[in-house]
């Protein structure tokens, strides 16, 4: 009798393991940070891209609208591809796009903007990459959506494309 209990317990446990493994297979094992994890907008101070003056996050995000933060660099190839979508997005009146220029040469970055257009209402320099870490980024390009209550509600890793552009549009309505 005791043996039968052991056996049943083991069988149930094994079936449980099987189900877990089976489900585990169907999940991606490439880690993408919890996109749903709500994070507060970090408090920081950064240098303005053009004027080289310090500006605080309070000043930058003072308006009661949706903000889009985009991390980019002139040396980053996918950033070129996504730029036109950013230009599209910038036409939207009720949001502002803040750019974070990541580990870049200022002249190259300025040329990039001159060549492809400026969707950014404000641009910041992040020479050593620390500012992107504040946002929880780990590469470039990455884009963050910040809602009116100053919470990061969405992260997009990699370049924006048509699909993600539509997703962003839905969020910022």
């Amino acid at each position, binding site marked *: 009798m005791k043996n039968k209990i052991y056996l049943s317990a083991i069988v149930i446990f094994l079936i449980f393991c099987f189900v877990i493994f089976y489900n585990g297979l169907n999940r991606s094992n490439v*880690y993408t*940070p*919890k996109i749903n*994890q709500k*994070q507060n907008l970090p408090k920081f101070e950064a240098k303005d891209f053009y004027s080289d003056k310090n500006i605080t996050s309070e000043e930058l995000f003072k308006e009661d609208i949706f903000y889009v933060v985009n991390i980019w660099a002139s040396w980053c190839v996918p950033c070129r591809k996504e730029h036109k979508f950013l230009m599209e997005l910038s036409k939207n009146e009720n949001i502002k796009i803040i750019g974070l220029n990541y*580990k870049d040469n200022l002249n190259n970055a300025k040329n990039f903007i001159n060549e492809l257009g400026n969707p950014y209402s404000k641009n910041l320099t992040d020479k*050593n*990459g*620390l500012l*992107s*870490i*504040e*946002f*929880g980024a*780990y*590469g470039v390009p990455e884009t963050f959506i910040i809602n009116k209550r100053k919470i990061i509600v969405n992260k997009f890793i990699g370049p924006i494309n048509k699909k993600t552009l539509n997703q962003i549009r839905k969020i910022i309505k």
Partner: protein
Amino acid sequence: MKIFKIFLLMILFINIANANTDIKDKNLNNKILKNIRCLVCQGQSVYDSESEFSSTIKLLVKKKINEGKSEKQIYEFLRERYGDWVIYEPELNRNTYILWLLPLLLFLLGGAIITKKLK
């Protein structure tokens, strides 16, 4: 036998409490870097990796240590932004009680079985 077992448990207990098996790195810095996962690499710590991301993290940790932040605070900072996945040592929290305690429970269970067998 019982005394022996108690003695054993004592040694274990003290050892686990003290288990700072990483040699006290002349640098707290290095110890922390070895505990952070390089998120753009395939299974390397920030300490061992030369990637862009890792060099930024190395800078960050140095800065935080200079600001006087503790090891725990630095891990907390990174966990807030990247999730628990970024730190190699799993924190003892609601999610990980089973992880840390199950092996020890099994150990005690094994001990109980053996004591029964020896009676």
